[in-house]
């Protein structure tokens, strides 16, 4: 059986090379879908999370949002999206944003909320206005954890975009669910590509996270692992 499996894997590599235009096309669609969804999620979640964290308000909601997001089966979100919004790029972005917002918002909130209170107090005591405190003290210190949330959301979105293919979102998922057209080799080939895409996104954002971490905080948030912290 393993010989047959090896055979399939080798053939799938052939598939990737032979149909590279298709692969690149689909990968580009996938990246587009994910990037747009991620951008929208960041635009929605970061301001809300940061402001709530700065004001130290709404902790119950903000903290539990990530847990709720994790409990939402991706297939359910896509399916509900299809049922009520129909198929197509824009509708799938909506579904992906629903899944991408919770980890970003929760992390943004916790990151700003848990900035060392002594530092904030010292800043206020020095005469900084609230918005200056936010900009110069809280945000830089919150950046690592905040970015970890973005990283988690990015991986989540890339993964879910794969399933969004069934709803006409395009992307590598289209190959993955279409055994009739592409046969096993195609499916495995697409699976390899989307895995590499996800790993690359994670690693890439990991490097950015590292670069953004102020030198004094380097050890606090592990840059090599996805942030699956459960805020209990």
């Amino acid at each position, binding site marked *: 059986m393993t010989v047959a499996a090896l055979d399939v894997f080798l053939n799938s590599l052939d598939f990737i090379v032979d149909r590279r235009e298709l692969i690149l096309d689909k990968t580009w669609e996938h990246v587009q879908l994910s990037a747009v969804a991620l951008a929208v999620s960041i635009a929605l979640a970061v301001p809300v999370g940061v402001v709530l964290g700065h004001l130290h308000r709404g902790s119950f909601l903000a903290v539990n949002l990530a847990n709720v997001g994790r409990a939402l*089966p991706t*297939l359910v979100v896509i*399916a509900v999206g299809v049922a009520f919004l129909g198929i197509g790029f824009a509708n799938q972005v909506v579904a992906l944003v629903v899944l991408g917002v919770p980890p970003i918002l929760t992390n943004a909130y916790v990151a700003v909320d848990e900035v060392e209170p002594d530092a904030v107090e010292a800043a206020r005591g020095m005469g900084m206005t609230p918005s200056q405190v936010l900009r110069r003290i809280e945000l830089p210190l919150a950046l690592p954890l905040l970015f970890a949330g973005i990283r988690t959301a990015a991986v989540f979105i890339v993964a879910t975009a794969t399933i969004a293919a069934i709803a006409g979102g395009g992307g590598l998922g289209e190959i993955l669910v279409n055994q009739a057209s592409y046969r096993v080799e195609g499916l495995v080939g697409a699976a390899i590509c989307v895995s590499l895409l*996800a790993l690359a996104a994670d690693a890439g954002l990991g490097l950015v996270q590292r670069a953004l971490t102020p030198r004094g905080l380097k050890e606090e948030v592990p840059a090599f692992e996805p942030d699956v912290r459960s805020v209990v």
Partner: protein
Amino acid sequence: MTAGPVIPDFGEASDCVSENRTFCSDWVRENWDPVLQPALVEHVKLTLIAVVVGFAISLVAALLAHRLRHVERPFAIASAVIYTIPSLALFQLLVPITGLTVTTVEVALVGYTLLILFRNILTGLRSAPPEVLEAARGMGLTGTQTLFRVELPLALPAIVAGLRVAVVSTIALATVAAFVVSEGLGVPILGALPLNFKTEIIAAGALAVGLAIVADAMLVVVQRLLTPWAYTRRVA
């Protein structure tokens, strides 16, 4: 890819169903036994097996990593890589090896639990305060006794927290199993998609979410029962 069960044709669909309104409770009542309940039971089974096996593997790995520091990095990186691979892709990568079977699904689901369980168990084991370990050693507890009577009990809060996340994530991920095998709550959803049948999608989806909430709540109760000391505060 397999197709889910088609909506049973009773010949006379109610108005609600034929107009595809948002939610038809009559459909749900009729189809609870044949469609929804079996899917729910299968879903619970899939989750339970995955979490139990994943926990066993992670526990062994964490105990090893606690004693031998070199074990930690490789296991952590391997489980992180698995976690990052999208579920559908992981299923497809396994299909050539284990076929379109429940095994494929379980292997993938187990893989996804490893990261959170391994990390939390290890963190929990390391959370025993150093003076507690010193007192234990000075009193004459052996290494094994210290592990079972001190380190593991003190690791329970972190372990249960990890289990909560693992269970909830697995319940959510198990819906995707429907792409590989005709089991679980993903099946009615996939089946209802081509026809855009709202009621079935919402019913199955609600069950999945509800299952996650119930499982999470149960684990919270378990945590309270197992760790009474974590909920006390200074009396005087």
